[in-house]
């Protein structure tokens, strides 16, 4: 039972991070390798607002979310719009460079100490019994947040005008632009949403386990989950996260705890060998002369 709970928590961590990868890739065909850093920046945002709005934890959380989304939009406006239409390699490298820049800047601003934003908010991480297992309050919040984010994204993408524009831009950017969809606006929104969801994941993980440099590695480990599910499918990201989390938790429990860092990548390789476009992804078009 405890294993099932662990799998659920890890899967929702991965799923919450993954939807950033999926959103950006689906809309603009760019793979953001700076997602781990954006996630950490979101967590540091919470840490900053928690000390700013000392007595009002809810305001602090909302402010941190707004901050995270703003950062995402700012990243697009400052850097990534120049990479629109460039080669795949250039765009990926730009996000890698952005990642290093952000990592260095965060250490310069916030230091290398482990921070506990939850304590600054004045909340405690109580442990909640579920059947004969236990789950931390932050873990429970993670699962709920993931469910809410995926539900909200689904409704947004299918029900609202901007959501439909986003899907159109992802399907055929040139056609969408000619029909009056402002691509830069749509891409900026995708980056904002990705940074928001990634930031939320970062905040919740920081609340659960403390805020330190290893957060970036979790961000990178979530990426195989997105690919296993299919890089351009949100439902796929959910399933992929579940598969990767289950494999990771079970292997750690039954085989060797040191495997934790490689299991997602081994799964990723296996998936790439068998079905490169993932479980639910769409097949890329063939190359034409």
């Amino acid at each position: 039972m405890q294993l099932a709970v662990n799998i659920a928590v890890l899967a929702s961590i991965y799923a919450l991070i993954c939807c950033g990868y999926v959103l950006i890739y689906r809309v603009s065909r760019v793979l953001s390798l700076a997602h781990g850093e954006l996630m950490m920046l979101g967590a540091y945002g919470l840490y900053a607002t928690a000390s700013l709005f000392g007595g009002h934890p809810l305001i602090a959380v909302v402010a941190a979310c707004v901050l995270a989304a703003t950062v995402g939009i700012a990243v697009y406006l400052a850097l990534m719009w120049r990479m629109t239409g460039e080669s795949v390699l250039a765009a990926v490298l730009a996000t890698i460079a952005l990642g290093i820049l952000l990592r260095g800047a965060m250490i310069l601003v916030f230091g290398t100490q482990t921070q506990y934003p939850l304590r600054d908010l004045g909340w405690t991480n109580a442990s909640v019994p579920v059947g004969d297992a236990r789950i931390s309050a932050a873990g429970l919040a993670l699962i709920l947040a993931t469910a809410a984010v995926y539900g909200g994204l689904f409704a947004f993408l299918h029900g609202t005008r901007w959501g439909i524009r986003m899907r159109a831009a992802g399907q055929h950017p040139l056609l969408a632009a000619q029909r009056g969809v402002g691509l830069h606006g749509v891409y900026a929104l995708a980056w904002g949403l990705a940074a928001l969801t990634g930031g939320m994941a970062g905040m919740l993980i920081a609340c659960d386990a403390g805020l330190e440099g290893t957060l970036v590695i979790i961000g990178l480990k979530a990426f195989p989950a997105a690919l296993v599910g299919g890089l351009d499918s949100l439902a796929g990201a959910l399933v992929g996260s579940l598969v990767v989390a289950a494999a990771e938790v079970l292997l750690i429990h039954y085989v060797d705890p040191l495997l934790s860092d490689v299991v997602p990548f081994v799964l990723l390789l296996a998936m790439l060998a068998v079905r490169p476009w993932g479980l639910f992804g769409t097949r890329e078009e063939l190359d034409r002369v």
Partner: protein
Amino acid sequence: MSGYFRVRYADDFALLNTRTRKAWFGLLAAGLCVYPFVSGPLWLDLANQVLLGSIGAVGLMLLTGYAGQISLGHAGLLAAGAFTTGILFKEFAAPMWLTLPASAAVGASLGLLFGLPSLRLRGLYLAVSTLALHFIVIFLGGEYETRRGFSTGIVIDAPLSSPRGWYFTLFFAAAVTVLLALNLLRSRTGRAWRAIHGREAVAEALGISVPRAKLSAFVVSSTLTAVAGCLFAYYRGFVSAEAFSLYLTIQYVAMIIIGGMGSLLGAVLGTVFVVLFPYVIDAAMALLGLSERLSSVVFAVNYSAFGLVMILFLVFEPQGLVGLWRRVQNWFLLWPFKQRPLAK
């Protein structure tokens, strides 16, 4: 009659054709030979790092800059070479003439393995699969360290200790690498690599076996990289999995970006830039009087400055240092005009 004419086939094959070029090259070679006798220990170490790095950078340039296959597993390949050397040294006390070919062989077979996904995957997916292989290689190396009780790393005795000796060894290795790459690039293999970079479907229609060209690019690149890893292990005298982080891959990728894609000169210039960069930052901090305040976070300053420089190059000068150099060259060549005249 004056001018430069090619009257024999040998002239066509010559790497250095005109007398001026030969003279300049002779001057460069002489300068590089004198260098270790006039420079201090720090500058000698830097030169050694550049020579070592340029072997790996040329390897990556062949793969990414010429054959167009994106690889984010470069640190993994370096680690493979270094760990092969370390393990052979520790377990069998193997000498260098044994570990070097062994590293090359491991590199070649890993290159085949790294290259296999490239037969089905392109662009982004390929980058991701090489990234995954990087993590697996590093994991295996770390696993060996912990299982055998070298948890902090493997210590290796270098066959030569004088920095000058190292300089000439590495100089020789780098020169051989560059020569090999130059000749490969103007042979059928190199032309096939450029063709698949341009467009795979067309290359295939021209009679190039795409899988073969891709795999050969991966194998050549990984062999060079693994050899660089072996030399790295001896030069440092120390192998540990922590030394081969993702940041090392990023540094190598930065070398070929900052140097300029699709140019061997670019690979070398980029290596010089990346190796000297931390020292320049250090000097700049000392000049601004920030060294004491930032002494505990020097690496963070390096990270952010490095990221910033990479972004600036990607956005403003995608052709890298070589592009800058060519622009300066053209400015003088064409002066007072701005562009080449249209074809007559």
